[in-house]
């Protein structure tokens, strides 16, 4: 296709020059034909390996995946249903289990909402403006990724615990943070805080500020620019970040374990309940809750794949 276009163009050019230079029109054309007819060398494709090598590599990969990913997943569901479907749903209907599910959903709703707002604001500031301390802010956003979740939880114990910096003041005013919903929410927010910002920063940096400038020069206010131009451009990236943030918020164990206090029916989230039930040899109940988390993981995985495809399209959409 492109070769034909090339031919057509060069012929036209030659024609227009022909009267002046006395060069025959047809002469160079065969040269191009020859160039196209050049045979592709029939040697072994350098980007592939011989059959046996390929088989071994593929077998290794499949074995590894089966042992470390598929097998555990199967075990979760198999154990959950080992005493039958009735036992499975009975385990999920226990008040303790229901309380844990409710608490997990509440914590996820709080932390995802707050991190959504924070993530968009941080990504907006970092990608659209130049200011002192920008690199430091980016590093700070990544901090929760590099700190062990247990430490993240301990930080809040040190701050709000009975012996902590604000402990006596909180006790005096009868405010409960630790071993209550606020503490769990705070620890979860801290741990999941980089996801949305991290998903948006590269996307927004790549998109630049020109569309925003165009909107402003066309008379749009700051809010109009954000809701009509910036937000539609980042919506897939935003959903991607929210999805990962949600998965982590529901599944977080370490940080939450430190601040929760494990009060049955009150401050146990699903991951914490899984551990407690397991330690009490209630395997069916434990794996039933675990199976819910596993399903969340599977749904997240599928949604993530779909979103990644959308994101690619959003970026390619600008292509010249």
């Amino acid at each position, binding site marked *: 296709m492109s070769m034909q276009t090339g031919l057509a163009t060069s012929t036209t050019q030659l024609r227009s*020059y022909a009267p*002046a*230079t006395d060069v025959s029109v047809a002469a160079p054309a065969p040269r191009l034909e020859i160039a196209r007819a050049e045979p592709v060398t029939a040697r072994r494709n350098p980007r592939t390996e011989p059959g046996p090598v390929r088989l071994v590599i593929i077998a290794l990969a499949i074995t590894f995946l089966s042992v470390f990913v598929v097998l555990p997943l199967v075990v979760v569901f198999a154990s959950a249903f080992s005493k039958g479907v009735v036992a499975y749903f009975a385990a999920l209907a226990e008040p303790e289990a229901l309380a844990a599910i409710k608490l997990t959903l509440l914590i996820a709703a709080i932390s995802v909402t707050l991190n959504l707002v924070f993530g968009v604001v941080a990504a907006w500031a970092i990608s659209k403006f130049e200011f002192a301390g920008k690199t430091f802010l980016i590093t700070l956003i990544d901090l929760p990724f590099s700190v062990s979740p247990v430490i993240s939880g301990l930080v809040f114990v040190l701050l709000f615990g009975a012996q902590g910096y604000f402990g006596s003041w909180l006790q005096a005013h009868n405010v409960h943070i630790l071993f209550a919903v606020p503490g769990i929410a705070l620890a979860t927010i801290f741990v999941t805080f980089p996801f949305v910002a991290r998903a948006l920063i590269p996307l927004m940096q790549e998109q630049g500020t*020109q*569309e925003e*400038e*165009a*909107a*402003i*020069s*066309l*008379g*749009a*206010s700051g809010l*109009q620019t954000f809701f*009509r*131009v910036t937000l*539609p*451009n980042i919506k897939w990236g935003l959903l991607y970040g929210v999805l990962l943030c949600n998965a982590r918020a529901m599944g977080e164990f370490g940080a939450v374990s430190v601040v929760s206090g494990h009060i049955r029916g009150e401050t146990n989230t699903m991951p914490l309940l899984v551990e407690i039930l397991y330690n009490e040899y209630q395997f069916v109940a434990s794996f039933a809750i675990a199976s819910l988390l596993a399903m969340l993981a599977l749904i997240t995985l599928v949604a993530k794949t779909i979103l990644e495809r959308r994101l690619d399209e*959003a970026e*390619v*959409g*600008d*292509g*010249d």
Partner: protein
Amino acid sequence: MAIEVKNIVKKFGSFAALDNVDLKVADGELLALLGPSGSGKTTLLRIIAGLDWPDSGEVAIDGENALSRGASERQVGFVFQHYALFRHMTVFENVAFGLRVQPRAIRKDEATIRARVKNLLDLVQLDWLANRYPSQLSGGQRQRIALARALAIEPRILLLDEPFGALDAKVRKELRQWLRSLHNEIHVTSIFVTHDQEEALEVANRVVVMDKGRIEQIGSPGDVYDNPATAFVHGFIGESIVLPVDVAGDAVRLDGRPLNIPALGAASGAAKLFVRRHDMAVGPAGTGALEGAIRHVRSFGPIQRAEVALAGSEGKTVIEIDAPPRPRAAGRRNRLAAAPPLPDLRRAGVAP
């Protein structure tokens, strides 16, 4: 609307992007800001639009202080170099954007907006693309949509940043003529930035040549080409041959040989002589102001160009001049003479 820019200074760190720039643009003009990259032309345009702010100086649009208003209140149409079309909106919605974000009090009703967008798409001859997305358009089409979008807000002035920079040569030529005729039709005061001298000279009524944050010359295209005010303008616009000469009083010497041209007030010492290539011609030996040997003759189509090593410079000074359109064998010791008049002499600093 007239634009007046006074004493604009803009620094990025220690780099002076604009160094005390003054400029007056009359109502209805089509003005080109021409200069190499880093000359400050885009910065000046962005300051007029309100997308950048000067460190000091004044900008007035139609006599009123523009710096007291933000970009969204200036009613300035801006066309970006890479178009900056809203990628998630159709062509129609892109053009309608400026009308839809107007304050509720003055916003037109839907039917009026539709009619106006339709008119603009007709104006840029792309009404058949209304439902496409920017990614489905060619570069030239995107450029015209960007222009229609900027015109939708009935801008008081129109600013275009390298409007044809990202297009291929053929489309660029078409769009140039199209922009000119469009300007004749709508008569909005327009400034466009370009680094392409041909584009500036062909499209604009007036050309502003900039370098290193300063204005070197303002004039009509013919003026800027025929009477360059500074060495920079002479070197930047049109092709020039530069010869190292010595000035002593009113005499100009090249390698000790006197040239029959006036010094035009250049101070004594080393200077640069700028000559237009078409003001020189090859002739028989001994008849002209310069002597040299033809080293090589190159021909492309009807044009022949001779590479000439000037005598007296030990072959160091090599110039290229148009040769008569008849093949000459390279290496033949043809004598060369550059026929006077050598029209211009500009001093470009004394060598230490």
